[in-house]
């Protein structure tokens, strides 16, 4: 039984002090080391907020989130974030830095020796299926959307974090590039064995990439199932997702 890497304990979160509308309530979930979990939900269901409580981009108001057995609030926030890779839809690559400089931001911040940083750059570029020499000196604006997203993943993996958080990483891509990158993700995930939490509103993507799907609705977890069992779930929100994805029990792609 692998150890628990991330644990949500009855987490609640409100919009802000002036407007105490709940964004998350009663979130409890354990994610084991090496597991790939998809947080599935509609826009505004709280899935991104839930993801961001893990690296403290978002503060929660009740309950607790543990990373590696320790409450994130007792972690030094800078150390915590440098141990967690983070990938977002718009990639957030730094436009003034080359691909190599972008990918090596955290190794630089951590003052790795130059030799180690260089070889790590080659490793992670290889992991995401890009040829290091072809891209090292190029700037993000010279890349296609798919290439940028791969570089974004390479950057998140650079310092070899135990956890990877991905917020709709393939949302802004055309269907063919997305399928490519999903395949690349599966190859990468198999090779790195990291705990991955992936936010998506696409059931097909969740089924393809994750071993477990957590369904959120209006800030609550309404269902949590392995990918195999998800299509058999008897929950109205799950039905909606299945219907919208044109998937039926037994005919899953």
């Amino acid at each position, binding site marked *: 039984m692998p150890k628990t890497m991330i644990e949500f304990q009855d987490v609640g979160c409100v919009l802000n002090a002036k407007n105490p509308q709940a964004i998350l309530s009663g979130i409890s979930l354990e994610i084991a080391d090496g597991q790939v979990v998809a947080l599935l939900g509609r826009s505004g269901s709280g899935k991104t907020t839930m993801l961001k409580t893990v690296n403290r981009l978002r503060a929660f108001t009740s309950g607790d989130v543990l990373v590696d057995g320790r409450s994130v609030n007792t972690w030094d926030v*800078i150390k915590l974030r440098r141990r967690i890779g*983070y990938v977002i839809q718009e990639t957030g*690559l730094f436009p003034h830095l080359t691909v190599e400089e972008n990918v090596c931001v955290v190794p630089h*911040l951590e003052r790795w020796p130059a030799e180690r940083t260089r070889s790590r750059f080659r490793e992670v570029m290889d992991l995401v299926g890009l040829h290091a020499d072809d891209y090292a000196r190029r700037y993000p604006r010279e890349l296609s959307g798919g290439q940028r997203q791969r570089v974004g993943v390479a950057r998140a993996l650079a310092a070899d974090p135990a956890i990877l958080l991905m917020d709709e990483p393939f949302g802004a891509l055309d269907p063919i590039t997305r399928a490519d990158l999903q395949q690349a993700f599966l190859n990468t995930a198999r090779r790195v064995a990291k705990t991955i939490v992936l936010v998506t509103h696409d059931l097909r993507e969740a089924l393809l990439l994750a071993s477990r799907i957590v369904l959120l609705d209006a800030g609550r977890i309404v269902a949590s199932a392995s990918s195999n069992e998800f299509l058999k779930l008897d929950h109205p929100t799950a039905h909606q997702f299945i219907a919208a994805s044109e998937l039926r029990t037994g005919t899953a792609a």
Partner: protein
Amino acid sequence: MNFWSFFLSHRHEILTATREHLVLVCVSMAIAVAIAVPVGFLIVAFPRGRSIALAIANIFQTIPSLALFGFLIPIPFLGGIGTRTAIVALVLYALLPILRNTYVGLTGIDPAILEAAEAMGMTERQIMFRVRLPLATSFILAGIRTAAVITIGVATIAAAIGAGGLGTFIFRGVAMVSNAVILAGAIPSALLALLADYSLGLLERKLKVV
């Protein structure tokens, strides 16, 4: 008297006035940059001071330039007749464009980039100097460029309080009702403004990242 004959016969005087003008502009710009850029950083780091700092800079900009020179004359230490007073007024004028562009440049950054920087475990200081500053450089430079062009123009009025410069010819020409004399001050001043605009524009494009 036609312009060319006046220009040729007074070329040494015009050259001296141009030099005085350049000194006024360069000293004022150096001081204005040294004040406005750091203040711009401070109001990004401490947003509470933002409205006050921008309002003060705004107020100086709304005072008519001749009136501002006049107001400064009776003020002890800063004021009086001459170059020092002129520099104080020019600095006050140049503050706003530089301050505003520094602020806009540092804050107008794609939120996804800032979020990525934060998520990667950059400290506030690292975000400021490794992300915000390099992305804001061309904005800050654009502010300096605007301020330089304004300062070169306004510096002609400094002659009214005895600070010399190209304005000397303009005021003299107005008094003599002589276009030739006015142009002897106005043309070099316009050329300086164009030159400053062009060269700072080149630098700005060179430093632009996206």
